[in-house]
């Protein structure tokens, strides 16, 4: 009964492809996030949704499009993948917008070749 689950855990794809990463949380939290962690372990927020509403949208290429069908799900779709998109993507959720005691998923390691 994983709290925040992401699929797939690993994703290897060619440049130019379109891919999606799915995230689901069963904690009843109102807020969900996508973070990107680069090869130097630096974590940076990409998006935040509160009750299906986008509240944080960092300077992310518009090839990245989050979609929240309901407050328990926040998926990340990436168009026209580039080599620089290779990273580990983490989904997280928290009860409120403050990220207090946020729960992170296991991450999706995306490799673009």
């Amino acid at each position, binding site marked *: 009964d994983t709290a925040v689950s992401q699929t797939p855990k690993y994703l290897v794809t060619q440049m130019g492809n379109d891919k999606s990463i799915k995230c689901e949380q069963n904690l009843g939290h109102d807020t969900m996030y996508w973070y990107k962690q680069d090869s130097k372990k630096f*974590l940076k927020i990409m998006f*935040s949704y509160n009750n299906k509403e986008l509240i*944080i949208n960092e300077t992310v290429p518009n090839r990245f499009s989050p979609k929240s069908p309901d407050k328990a799900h926040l998926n990340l779709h990436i168009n026209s993948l580039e080599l620089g998109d290779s990273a580990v993507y983490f989904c997280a959720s928290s009860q409120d917008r*403050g*990220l*207090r005691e946020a729960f992170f998923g296991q991450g999706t390691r995306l490799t673009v070749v």
Partner: protein
Amino acid sequence: GESVGLHLPTLSVQEGDNSIINCAYSNSASDYFIWYKQESGKGPQFIIDIRSNMDKRQGQRVTVLLNKTVKHLSLQIAATQPGDSAVYFCAESPGGGTSYGKLTFGQGTILTVHP
């Protein structure tokens, strides 16, 4: 832009020793700080947090100290165990406004505990 950084990227200690991980932040508007632990192949895990109206907060074997004067945050781990080996991140967030809920993470410190 504003950023959060760490002084020591790596820290090696012996089992049973106390560990201190430091973090400097530059955003004077930050009023909420969190420490996360990330084990290999896993997502970050919440350890402890502190608000700017506090100087110190204690948890189980961990203590966070906040010095707003010099914008410095530290995480102290007592009686460090091999299971504490991980990457530790500090993160900060402003109290309100349009950036509410946005966490800025520091670089990360690799803690290695030797048996």
